[in-house]
């Protein structure tokens, strides 16, 4: 059983990290099916480490199907941004950062995954994950400063 919050997190991860609606939804569909096959915790949710592991495998599989720096194909209806939040900033950040930084920022800063769980799921050390997050944050800050927006 996968809750709506978990489904949203998985969909949002792929949408923000792949920037291709069709591929992201396909990856999300498979990841949710994999998650349903796993035994949940007592409270009905799944372990963050397992979720991070599934997301990493899904990202690695579907990322190969994309060309870097290709134009994003995302419909306006699939994601709804709050007022004052610019999607173009994210697109610029996505193009100027590595996959590791993008996924680290999405999981830790946007979806709120613990850095330790993401590090274990991605099979890297906690220091490496912390460095990726820090670098990604700085890069995102640079993009924001260059675009002239602070939000």
């Amino acid at each position, binding site marked *: 059983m996968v809750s709506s919050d978990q489904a949203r997190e998985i*969909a949002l991860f792929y949408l923000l990290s792949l920037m291709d609606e069709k591929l992201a939804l396909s990856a999300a569909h498979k990841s949710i099916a994999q998650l*349903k096959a796993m035994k949940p915790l007592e409270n009905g949710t799944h372990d963050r480490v397992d979720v991070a592991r599934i997301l990493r495998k899904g990202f690695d599989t579907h990322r190969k199907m994309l060309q870097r720096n290709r134009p994003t194909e995302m419909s306006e209806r699939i994601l709804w941004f709050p007022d004052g939040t610019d999607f173009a900033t994210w697109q610029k950040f996505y193009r100027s950062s590595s996959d590791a930084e993008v996924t680290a920022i999405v999981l830790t800063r946007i979806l709120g995954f613990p850095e330790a769980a993401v590090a274990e799921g991605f099979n890297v050390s906690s220091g490496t994950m912390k460095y990726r997050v820090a670098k990604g944050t700085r890069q995102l800050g640079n993009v924001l400063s260059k675009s002239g927006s602070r939000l």
Partner: protein
Amino acid sequence: MSEIKSNQFTRKKLTPFLAHEMIYDYVTGQLDNERRAALEEFLVKDSESQNLLKNIQAAQAYTENLRKVTVDAETLLQLQEAESAVSLGKKYSSLKEWPESLRWSVTAIALSVIVAGSVALIPWGRLMPAKKPGGVSQLEVAQIPQPKPDEATEVAANDDSGSGDEAPDEAGDEGSGDDVGDEGGAPPVNVAALAAIAAQQRKATATPTPTPTAVAANRPPESVARATPPTFVTVNLPKPIQPAAAKPSPTPAPGTNASTNLTISTTPDSHAPGDAKARGFVYRAFMTLDNLEEIGPKITSDIVALGGEKAGEVELGWKRGTGRYYHYALPEENEKKMLERLQVYGPVRISKDPHPRVMPPGKVRFILWVESAGDPSAPPN
């Protein structure tokens, strides 16, 4: 040690590179007090670090806003229904997840299969043995071996009615009543059945509870078949008026069909209380009577009146099929009286057979089988 290091750090000058690397930790609150103080002191002086700090703070604010991004609800519903083969198998492995109609159908089919399988596999015939029609169970009886030629000749010489010829042949014929002149087509007496009964009684001496049905069904062991089987000698006696006046005669009057017949057989050297091999003996008596329902209880009362008491497990006059079975011990002095009493009711065929069971001194044992006349059942061969 940590104090030394921190003191060393504070004494060293914070470089821009180090400061830039520490700004993220500073924003996320992961710096210790000394480093934070040093960085704050550096930030006051370095504008680039200040810009970097602002960028990081802006990035944090931006990512906080991205947390509020929503995904299309319809898309989310479609994603929640995603299933794989493993997840489907896991889902439907639990019966509770099945649709109710399907669940009840499968349950009904499973119960039907179980019931049909149990009916087909369980050997009901062994559990519930079928009863033979007619109410009369003809069981296989023991084969009583033919008497020795010398005894047969002796018996034939004493036989007036020719029943001695029949006796050797009919020793295996369960001693039917035909040899005592029962021309009414009386059904034969199950001699072998009585032998089986006697064998069962012998077993009763060793085993505590022999069953009545088993008594009739068991074959007597070979030892019971006797090395010297008795032969029957039909003796015609005048019908006694009083039971006391009747005495068995070795020379019966011929052609006296109305007379009371007492058939006595003896087994020479068959019983010797002092003989270790022969041990004891038993009187086996057979009668065929009309109106057994009325006479049977009378015989029982006669036995009891003469001091008889049951010597086996079944009660006196135990009813089996169309006959009655009496197995009792009697005081020896009442032996003749017993025979006289029985002759009142009809002809008696009696034999004295060796038996391993030894009765106490002064006691003799009888096995009396009374068959009801007019029983259409054929004698088992």
